[in-house]
C-alpha cells in the first residue's frame, strides 16, 4: 500500500484510464467481430430441443432431437422456412437456399453485443434468434418455440466451404 500511495495520484489516474483501454485493445485485437464471423454459407446439421421435457406418463426424458414433422410444423410459423443452406452476405442480406431453389433474400443484423440475430422479411415480419456461438466452423442459434413443446430450439450449422 505504501508503494502505491508513493506513486502519486497522477500516475494512478493515468493507469486507471490506460490499463482498461489497453486491455480493451488487446481483447479486440485477439478476436473477430461476430458480424465478420457470420459471413458466408452455413448448412443446417441439427435441430434439437435445448430443454428436455419430462414425459408425464413414465417420468423418462423425451428425446432431444426434433422429428421432421415437428420441425416442419415449427418452421411454418417462422420466416426461415425449410432452408438447407443459409448464406450471410456482407450487404446485410441473407439467402436461404433449398435444393437449388433460392428464396427472396432476407435482411440480417446483429444486436446487443452480437448475441442477437435479427432477420427481417421483405414484408416487414421480423424474427430474433439468439446467436449462441459462431466461429470458423460452427454456428449455433437458439429460438423460443411454442409449438408442440414449449422450449428453446437449438439449430446447429456447419460452415460450407465455398
Amino acid at each position, binding site marked *: 500500500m505504501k508503494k502505491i500511495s508513493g506513486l502519486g495520484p497522477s500516475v494512478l489516474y493515468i493507469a486507471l484510464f490506460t490499463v482498461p483501454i489497453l486491455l480493451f485493445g488487446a481483447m479486440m485485437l485477439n*478476436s473477430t467481430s461476430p458480424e465478420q464471423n457470420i459471413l458466408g454459407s452455413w448448412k443446417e446439421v441439427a435441430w434439437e430441443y435445448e430443454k428436455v421435457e419430462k414425459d408425464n406418463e413414465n417420468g423418462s426424458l423425451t428425446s432431444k432431437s426434433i422429428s421432421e414433422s415437428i420441425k416442419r410444423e415449427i418452421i411454418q410459423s417462422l420466416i426461415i422456412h425449410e432452408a438447407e443452406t443459409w448464406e450471410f452476405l456482407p450487404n446485410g442480406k441473407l439467402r436461404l437456399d433449398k435444393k437449388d431453389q433460392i428464396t427472396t433474400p432476407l435482411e440480417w443484423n446483429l*444486436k446487443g453485443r452480437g*448475441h442477437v440475430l435479427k432477420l427481417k422479411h421483405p414484408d416487414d415480419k421480423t424474427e430474433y434468434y439468439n446467436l449462441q456461438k459462431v466461429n470458423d466452423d460452427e454456428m449455433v442459434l437458439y429460438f423460443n418455440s411454442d409449438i408442440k413443446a414449449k422450449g428453446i430450439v437449438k439449430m446447429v450449422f456447419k460452415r460450407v466451404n465455398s
Partner: protein
Amino acid sequence: MLRKFNNSRTLEDNKKLGALTAFSAGMVNVASVIIFFAFTSNVTGHFAILAEEIAKRNWYQAAVVFAWIFCFFIGNFVSNLVVIHSSKKRRHLSHAIPLLIEIGCLLFIGFYGQFFYKETLTETELMVAVLLFAMGIQNGLTASISNFAVKTTHLTGLTTDLGILLAMFTKKSFRQNEQLAGRAQLLVTIAGAYLLGGVFAGVLYLNIQFMVFIVACLVIVIIILYDYSKIKVTRFLRTKRSTISRWNTVTSES
C-alpha cells in the same frame, strides 16, 4: 432539486429529483432493450455477462461488455469531477453541467438513431456505450448531490433497501421513525417512477421509435428549468424584500 447539496437537501427535494431522473432512466433502459437488446441503466447484469464471455473465451464480446461497464464508470467519474471541482457559488450551474452532457448524449442517440442508424453491430455497440455513459453521469450526479440517498438507476440496491425497511417496519418503533418512513417513501417513489418511465417508453417507442430518447431528454430539461425558475423566484423575492426594507428605513427616517 439540483441547487442543494448533501445534508441541506430535504426529503421533498430528493423525491422530486429521484422521481424525474428515475422516470427518464426507466425510459432510456426500456427503449435500449427494445432497440439494442442491451440494458443501459445498470451494469450488474453486464458484470455477469462479462464473466460468462471471459469463461467462454469470447474475447470480442468480453471486450465490448468491458467497454460498456467502463463507459458507465466514466460517466460517474465525469459528473462528480464537474461537481467536486466547481465553484460553490455557482452550484446550480455545476450540477446542471452533467445533466447538459446527458442531454447531449440522448439528443445524439435520438437523432442519429432516427435518421442515420443502419443497424450495424458497431453502431449498436457505440450507441449502447453512449447511453451507458449518459446513465452513469445521471446516477453519479444524483447519488453524490443527495448524499447517496438517490440512486435512480440502481434498482438492485433500492429493492434491497426497501426489503430491509419493510422488515424493520414490523416493529412499531421503526414505523414511527420519520427518517425511515421518509426513506421508504423515497424508494417507492423512485421504483414507481422508473417502472412508469419504462412502460411509457415501451408504449411510446411503437409510435415514435428513436424519438423516445428526445422525450427522455425533455424530462431532464424539466429538472434544469425547474431549478432555474426556483433560483429566479428566490432572487426576485430577495430583491423585493431588500427593496421593501430599504423603503421602510427611508420612510421611517423621514
